């Protein structure tokens, strides 16, 4: 099976880093096989239709925009 692709869209701001950390923790606690990348290019954000960062994309699906959630809540979006 392909690893789950978790993408964090953000400029590297404090909130973006926090979302990446929580997503990483959620994926680990779920025991997923995953790959996490941070996308810092606004042109890429635009393709996903994102207008507020940080945003979370899982396997190409936009799951969360402009918010940081706890690892616990992110599990629902990533699982």
């Amino acid at each position, binding site marked *: 099976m392909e690893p789950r692709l978790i993408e964090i869209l953000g400029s590297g701001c404090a909130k973006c880093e926090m979302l990446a950390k929580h997503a990483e923790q959620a994926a680990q606690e779920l025991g997923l096989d995953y790959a996490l990348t941070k996308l810092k290019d606004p042109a890429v954000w635009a393709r996903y*239709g994102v207008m507020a960062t940080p945003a979370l994309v899982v396997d190409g699906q936009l799951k969360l925009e402009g918010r940081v959630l706890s690892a616990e809540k992110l599990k629902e979006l990533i699982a």
Partner: protein
Amino acid sequence: MTTDRRIAWKPQAVILLALIGVAAWWLVYRSLEPFASWFAFGLLGLSSRSPLGTAVAFFVFEAPKVLMLLAVVVFGVGIVRSFFTPERTRRLLAGRRESAGNVLAALLGVVTPFCSCSAVPLFIGFVTTGVPLGVTFSFLISAPMVNEIALVLLFGLFGWKVAALYAGTGLVIAIIAGWIIGRLKLERWVEGWVYQSGFGEAAAGADAPLTWNERTELGREAVRDIVGKVWPYVLAGIAVGAAIHGWVPQDFMASIMGKGAWWSVPLAVLIGVPMYSNAAGIIPIVQALLEKGAALGTVLAFMMSVIGLSLPETIILRKVLRPPLIAAFVGVVAAGIVVVGYVFNLVL
């Protein structure tokens, strides 16, 4: 949310609890002023005419008052904003003509969740989907300038008139400055790749409407997030304000920031633009300046330029805007703020 493990409260219980909460909040809020006087002049035994006594009373009254107002308003605004996502605002503004579009954009700028760190993706989303450039700017100008923190602090410290004045003039500046930027036909100074970015091409998954539980959760999140972040600035600002309140002589500011000093308005804007602070840090200081004789127009101009125009935001926007457009943006808004400053000094 299907896996919500919290107890499902009955609506009646929620309403009752909310009412009790509001009543308790109101009682505490009303007793802050007597408490502050008792604390400073009774418990500590300071003289109500000494600088230290007035400064302490000022701080003990203002700090909890402003934080309490802030928590309530940020919560309310968090709920209101759950109805206005950037996506929805974009759809409302797409294809609008100028004038009416500028007005709508400035108003939506007040209620749409916005953080200057998201100025770039928002700008791309707007201009690539048919929101005119000038209308986009009306939004980008009003969103940071007319925000709930500024309004709460102004209301809490100066009353509703000054708060309404600030909101009204902030909106007018956003509307007119955006309209002028639109008239100047500056589209060629937007970075070329922006229009080729294919906004939303890879988008998938529609948003389900939020439930009321999720909306109140967003409100609580906003309180944690915003109040958790700005309270040190509020306290620091009020402490400086308290010091000025206690020690700076009456009318000291009148000579440098009073109505008579014509150059003080442009100077206040020149100093304010490169400064970056959130409303929470600047307003308590502004209050103390006003109290010591600074003119309202000058002080409002200073505040607007600090909150509405900031160096970090222009640096962020450089990713999508070329320097002439950035210069036009800063120039038009700064000019608008100067005009507002003069008008208030003349009228009031």
